[in-house]
């Protein structure tokens, strides 16, 4: 019995070891599933934009719906100034969503359940947003830490809190996605293990729970991708429209 619910998260090498400048960059199952997810996205977008019909077929409709969904999300949270970043947010949303969804398939690997992956995405967003903020507003961007309408006595304290919350953005962003994915998949594995160990007599209860959890996990997979994208939009909004 594969009783270790954490075993599904192990990364192992596929093919030869690749070492560049002493760093191990081998192709792993994580890389494989990244490529699978990206290929699925590209295939979906290719099929969805291949035929330019006035009345769309199903795939084209889904592609256009996802386009409009992300476009609306950006314009609602970050306004029209965020338009140049639309391709990035769209790619990010689709990548996280499809990685989460591919991870829901049995025997697959969930790319987003690894803290290093989510942390790199979150750090990139954090740094990019900070750089954009400084480019757009110069040193005035620092006023993001000083909210207006706060009593002078409280100002130093609030500023410190603001700085801490700003700096913890990449951590919260990455840990939220990683923890959700890992927790969900571990739960599924644990209940799956219960089904096997309790057998045909007692296994029905954990099995039904497992089915329900699968539905919940699919919801969480979508929700976390959405949250990841919309938080990126909100951070971008802070950098583009300084309004404190």
């Amino acid at each position: 019995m594969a009783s270790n619910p954490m075993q599904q998260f192990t990364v192992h090498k596929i093919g030869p070891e690749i070492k560049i400048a002493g760093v191990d960059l081998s192709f792993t199952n994580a890389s494989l599933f990244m490529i699978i997810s990206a290929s699925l996205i590209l295939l979906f977008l290719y099929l969805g934009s291949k035929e330019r019909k006035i009345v769309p077929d199903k795939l084209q409709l889904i592609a256009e719906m996802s386009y409009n969904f992300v476009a609306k999300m950006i314009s609602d949270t970050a306004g029209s100034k965020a338009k140049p970043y639309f391709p990035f947010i769209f790619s990010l949303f689709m990548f996280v969503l499809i990685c989460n969804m591919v991870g829901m398939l049995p025997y697959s690997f969930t790319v987003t359940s690894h803290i290093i992956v989510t942390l790199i995405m979150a750090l990139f967003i954090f740094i990019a947003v900070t750089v954009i903020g400084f480019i757009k507003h110069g040193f005035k961007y620092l006023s993001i830490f000083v909210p207006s309408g706060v009593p002078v006595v409280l100002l130093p304290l609030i500023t410190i809190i603001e700085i801490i919350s700003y700096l913890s953005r990449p951590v919260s962003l990455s840990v939220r996605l990683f923890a959700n994915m890992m927790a969900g998949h571990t739960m599924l594995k644990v209940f799956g293990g219960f089904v096997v160990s309790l057998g045909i007599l007692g296994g029905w209860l954990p099995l039904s729970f497992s089915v329900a959890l699968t539905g919940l996990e699919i919801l969480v997979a979508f929700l976390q991708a959405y949250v990841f994208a919309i938080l990126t939009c909100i951070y971008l909004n802070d950098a583009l429209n300084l309004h404190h």
Partner: protein
Amino acid sequence: MKSFLSFLTTLVVTKADLFAAEAGMPQLDPQYWASQAFWLILVFAILYISISKFYLPKIKDNLDNRENKIKEDLENAQKHREQSEKKLQEYETIVENAKKEVAKILLESKNNLNKEIQSKKQKIEKEIENEIIKAQKEIIEMKKNSITSIEIISKNIVSKIIENISGEKLNESSIKAVVEDISKKNIDRYL
């Protein structure tokens, strides 16, 4: 949601602790961190570039095309509707004019017909009257003529009767005078 997530996390943490003895969390094993980072950046960069360069412009184009097409079609439809409304109005005025003209023509022809009938009637009536007058004259003439013939016949009859009775031939002129006298006395009864 939050409480549920924290519940899940605690569960996972306790569960993970149970098995941590042998493996722990593979996520925290730094052996493949560099590899994952490298492949993530590579794959995501390719994904981002192909999405932003090829697919999003295509989808946007398509959406814009559709919007333009719908707008155009709506405009065309509006134009066509206006045109048809104008045509309908034109048609209605034409029909109305035609109706008016028909009424006029009807009235005129009625009047003409009446006039013609009247004049023909008068003419025919006159002719009939003339004919009647002529016939009456003829009848009177004939009556007059018949009286003279009756006179001659009656004179002859009278002279014969007298001759037969008396055996004597009377003067014709006297007979004639007597007959004429009698007929003159009674002529009003016949004319």
